[in-house]
């Protein structure tokens, strides 16, 4: 049984004109030590998916249906008190902008010690030692001085290192990282990413990486899922999707990437833009921008179909697969 | 009420009343006036507050009783030696708070100090000298025959000469009187009165204690300790009484008379007062006011009864003249004359049928309901087409405007220091003359040489009946000439807890004789 299983998760936002469907029947799973990538344009619902696992969706969002099983226990049904024991302890999070994540008026030490004391009966002294060790682990220069400094006294990169250290404080099973390096400048990004990966592998921690950077996902994750307008349109082993993307949207994304091998090729641009949550078209949400659109796509949401180890929700793809299965073994 | 001054012979009998044992002075009294005394030097300022203080910590030679007769205090008796001299005999066995005994020398020292004090100097102008005859007798001599000798003598509160002689630690004379800085006398006191000041924080609280060997053992007063707190805001002062915070308050605003009367725990005492409230019509500023018919029209347009009943809530006696009842100059034949039709007829006769516009000024925190009275008068004048541009000011800003005669009609209230009619005319109706100082508050610039001559004559007329006739004639002439617009005499009101028997110790001059107060 997988470490984390999300089944048909529905999340809605009660906004003025009635409820907006932020996530529609999202299902995926995450095994121990596995690295999963969530990809999609901004506003596709990646962050909402991440936050809804720990029921941290801001007002007026709420979980409308489905379940989130962690070691068999359904997190979405848990009481706030029980869920608190999981948050930060078994599942840790890393936010996007290190400038905003740490409380500006509290020292780094306080914010680390409190995380430990929230889950363990431990003296402040002992908590500070653990925090110091973790800071060394994320290779921050002169860690003891850092404990008594305020967030504004550290650089962006150093702050993200602190946040990673905090995530690892209680040896969690899963780390959910919501675009951990986007806010950093390029030179630091690679460094921080490498550090995060190394630490996850070292402690066999499962990593759920939310990003819009396909390149990063292809190098770092083992499985990936592509999201569009709150739905997973394609998920499967990263290698298979990157090399042979099935869903037209995924193909569009990949073709939009500049390839080292083909200098001077005009980058493909997917026409139009992703609809906002309040104007999601019926049927397959991508149909207005899809080159292979058919009437069927305009009416109903396609079912998932298996293509290799990849699940895809697209009528065109499912038609192609049927042809392949029906075709006799013509070719030797 | 003509027997005013002839009573002094009768009073002799009182002095030798049998000596009664003084009641055990244990009660304490919480008192709230609308202001606390400005200074402890009773010669520094001539004001109601200071005189009330004087009656608590000092004793006068003689004082007014309820029915406006003289009651001997430190002066056992007095008799007229000749036209200009009155011989007084002091009471024996009277000691000051400092322990020194009271002698005629102390009275002479007090008399000299009164002659220097800027405020009291005017009252003692007619007196030439105080001659000490012996330890307990002295003569009070006037430069010419002066009928109000005893009235003035009520202002003499003998001070402890020894206590106030020499210099204080800063080297200034202890007896010095100064308006500006604080002098020895403004901080320390030694009198013969029933109470001594034990602690004083100006504007906050003044505490008094009964003087152990007070000479007047016959006094029924059983109050041992008094704490006086000034409460400026009428509303708060009344609430303090009703909530039991204080035992005795004065003054009581007219609007709260009802409430205190029908409250079982509190008792109310009112008396008709001697302060006249009136409007002047400035003839120099506004030419039509020189026509007697216009002035009479204004006089007819004013409804004194309406103001007294509605605005003062019956807490004032409508007035047609300056002298209140009980004064020599009071002329019973003069009555209020409210008659709008007659007023309109007079205006038409004077050629002002369609009226005119005048300016009017009044204070808004000096006299009881002063701003509301001014509004009512303005409304009444509007009925005969006199359009009034009214402006009310706080008293600090009002008086400079009054001195400049800044408006056509101006309100003023007056209480005669000498409790005698002549004082009214000297300051309010005589022709303004800066040398002699007469007509200093005559904002109407009314000038009638005849009446002025009559007042001067009255000031030297010792035959009281003739003097009364003269003064009443002046009142009649002013009435016919509509020299001013009299409104009412302000009543006085005091309120206290049921257990505090304030009725016997109160008087028309508003000097509560707290020494004799009985608290059950």
């Amino acid at each position, binding site marked *: 049984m997988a470490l984390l299983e999300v089944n048909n998760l529905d999340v809605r936002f009660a906004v003025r004109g009635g409820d907006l469907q932020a996530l529609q029947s999202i299902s995926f799973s995450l095994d121990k030590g596995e690295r999963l990538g969530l990809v999609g344009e901004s506003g596709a619902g990646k962050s909402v998916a991440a936050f809804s696992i720990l029921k941290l969706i801001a007002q007026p969002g709420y979980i409308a249906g489905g379940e989130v099983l962690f070691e068999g226990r359904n997190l979405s049904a848990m009481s706030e008190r029980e869920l608190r024991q999981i*948050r930060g302890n078994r599942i840790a999070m890393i936010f996007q902008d290190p400038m*905003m994540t740490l409380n500006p008026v509290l020292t780094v030490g306080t914010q680390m010690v*409190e995380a430990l004391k929230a889950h363990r009966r431990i003296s402040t002294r002992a908590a500070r030692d653990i925090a110091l060790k973790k800071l060394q682990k994320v290779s921050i220069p002169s860690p003891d001085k850092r404990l008594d400094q305020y967030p504004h006294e550290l650089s962006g990169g150093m702050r993200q290192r602190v946040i990673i250290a905090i995530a690892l404080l209680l040896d969690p099973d899963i780390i959910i990282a919501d675009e951990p390096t986007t806010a950093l400048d390029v030179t630091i990004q690679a460094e921080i990413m490498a550090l995060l990966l190394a630490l996850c592998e070292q402690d066999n921690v499962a990593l759920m990486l939310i990003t819009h950077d396909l390149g990063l996902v292809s190098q770092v994750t083992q499985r990936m899922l592509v999201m569009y307008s709150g739905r997973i349109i394609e998920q499967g082993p990263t290698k298979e999707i990157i090399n042979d993307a099935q869903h037209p949207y995924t193909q569009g994304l990949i073709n939009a990437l500049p390839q080292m091998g083909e200098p001077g090729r005009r980058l493909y641009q997917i026409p139009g833009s992703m609809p906002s949550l309040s104007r999601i078209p019926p049927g397959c949400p991508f149909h207005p921008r899809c080159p292979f659109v058919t009437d069927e796509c305009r009416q109903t949401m396609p079912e998932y179909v298996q293509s290799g180890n990849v699940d895809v929700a697209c009528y065109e793809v499912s038609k192609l697969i049927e042809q392949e299965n029906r075709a006799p073994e013509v070719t030797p | 009420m003509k027997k005013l001054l002839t009573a002094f012979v009768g009073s002799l009998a009182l002095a030798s009343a049998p000596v009664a044992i003084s009641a055990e002075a244990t009660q304490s009294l919480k008192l709230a006036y609308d202001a606390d005394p400005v200074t402890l030097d009773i010669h520094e300022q001539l004001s109601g507050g200071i005189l009330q203080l004087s009656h608590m910590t000092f004793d006068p030679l003689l004082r007014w009783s309820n029915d406006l007769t003289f009651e001997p205090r430190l002066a056992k008796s007095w008799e007229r030696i000749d036209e200009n001299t009155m011989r007084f005999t002091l009471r024996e066995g009277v000691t000051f708070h400092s322990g020194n005994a009271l002698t005629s020398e102390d009275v002479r020292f007090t008399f000299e100090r009164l002659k220097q004090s800027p405020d*009291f100097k005017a*009252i003692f102008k007619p007196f030439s000298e105080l001659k000490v005859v012996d330890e307990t007798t002295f003569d009070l001599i006037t430069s010419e025959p002066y009928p109000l000798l005893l009235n003035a003598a009520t202002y003499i509160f003998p001070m402890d000469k020894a206590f106030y002689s020499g210099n204080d630690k800063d080297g200034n004379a202890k007896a010095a009187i100064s308006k500006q800085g604080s002098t020895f006398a403004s901080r320390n006191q030694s009198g013969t009165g029933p109470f001594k000041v034990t602690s004083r924080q100006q504007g906050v609280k003044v505490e008094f204690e009964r003087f152990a060997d007070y000479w007047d053992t016959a006094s029924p007063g059983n109050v041992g300790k008094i704490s006086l707190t000034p409460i400026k805001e009428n509303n708060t002062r009344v609430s*303090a009484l009703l*909530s039991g*915070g204080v035992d005795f308050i004065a003054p009581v605003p007219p609007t709260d008379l009802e409430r205190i009367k029908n409250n079982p725990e509190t008792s109310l005492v009112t008396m008709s007062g001697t302060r006249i409230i009136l409007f002047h019509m400035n003839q120099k500023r506004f030419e039509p006011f020189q026509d007697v018919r216009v002035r009479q029209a204004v006089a007819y347009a004013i409804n004194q009864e309406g103001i007294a009943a509605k605005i003062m809530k019956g807490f004032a006696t409508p007035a047609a003249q300056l002298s209140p009842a009980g004064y020599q100059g009071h002329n019973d034949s003069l009555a209020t004359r409210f008659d709008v039709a007659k007023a309109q007829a007079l205006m038409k006769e004077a050629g002002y049928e369609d009226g005119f516009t005048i300016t009017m000024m009044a204070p808004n925190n000096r006299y009881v309901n002063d701003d509301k009275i001014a509004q009512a008068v303005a409304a009444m004048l509007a009925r005969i087409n006199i359009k009034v541009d009214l402006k009310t000011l*706080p008293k*600090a800003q009002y008086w400079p405007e009054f001195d400049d005669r800044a408006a056509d009609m101006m309100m003023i209230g007056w209480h005669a220091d000498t409790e005698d009619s002549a004082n009214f005319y000297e300051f309010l109706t005589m022709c303004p003359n800066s040398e002699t100082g007469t007509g200093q508050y005559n904002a109407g610039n009314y000038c009638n040489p005849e009446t002025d001559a009559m007042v001067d004559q009255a000031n030297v007329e010792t035959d009281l009946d003739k003097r009364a006739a003269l003064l009443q004639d002046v009142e009649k002439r002013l009435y016919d000439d509509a020299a001013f617009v009299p409104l009412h005499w302000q009543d006085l009101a005091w309120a206290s807890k049921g257990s505090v028997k304030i009725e016997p110790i109160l008087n028309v001059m508003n000097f509560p004789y707290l020494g004799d107060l009985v608290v059950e």
Partner: protein
Amino acid sequence: MLAFLVQRISQALLVMFVISLISFSIQDGLGDPLQQMVGQSVSEAEREKIREELGLNDSFVVQYLRFAGQAVQGDLGTSYFYGKPTLEVIFEHLPATLELVIGASLIIGFLSVPIGVYAAIRPRAWLSKFFMGISTVGISIPVFLTAIVLIQLFSIGVTVNWFPPETGWGSWLNGLFSTEGGMPSYGRGDGLVHLFGTWHSGFFSSDGLRHLTLPAISLASIMLPLFIRLIRAEMMEVLQSDYIRYAQAKGLAPHRIHFLHALKNTMLPVITVGGVQLGIMVAYTILTETVFQWPGVGLMFLEAITRSDIPLIVSYLMVVGLIFVVTNTVVDLVYGLVNPTVKLTGKKA
């Protein structure tokens, strides 16, 4: 830090100089002081002599230079009415006002923080709506009306007979709404404990505290609604921020998140705005002190106005100006301490 203090002291002196110039220039508009000092029957000549003595006839410049000369040596002139140096009079009355302001601030502090935080955390709860409603009404009622109602209810007492007394529930309701009063409605009471110099405090005796209650409540009634709404608005804004969600993601307990993480950030703007309001509150005491006959500087100033006691008025305005600059400085210092991101040169974040 020193530079910051020196800068503020020089500002304080400038402020006091400007105030003294303004208040001195309106001298004649304040009425004639002599009127209060002299009896009514004193002749004009006599008054002229005294006026000359007091130097009231000198030209404006001469008077101001004399005043400034003395002011530099710390003597702000003598009050006509009290006959004592004005500073002495002010310091005699200052403790009463300061205790009133401290009392009101305590009430505000202890009430506005919990209510403000609660209203921010549960904006939909009916209790929050109730508090916000009361605070809006509170702002709309002028302070002297509140004061009078307090006196009527709690010191005089009100017997209510709206409900039919014969019925059980009627008399019970009547009893519920009636009050028998008894609270002191004026002055500071007799139980004042002498602390030091002219400071007689009412905090240390039950009688003193009872006298302080109604005036402090009525003074607080002006500022309390303002602080509740301020804390609520700031708190709601802070609760949206990322570091609060991150604190939740760390699994911290709600009260720690609300009362440490969120509250500390909320208090920053509250301190700056609040500090300024405290300075203003000193000026608001005038109304409260008038109604409660509270012997503070407010009442003293008002009486100085009615008596046109000009030296006292000028000195009071300067002292209030000084108090204001001092409170501003203290507010900036406290802000600097609480907000680590601000270096102590008094720059606001």
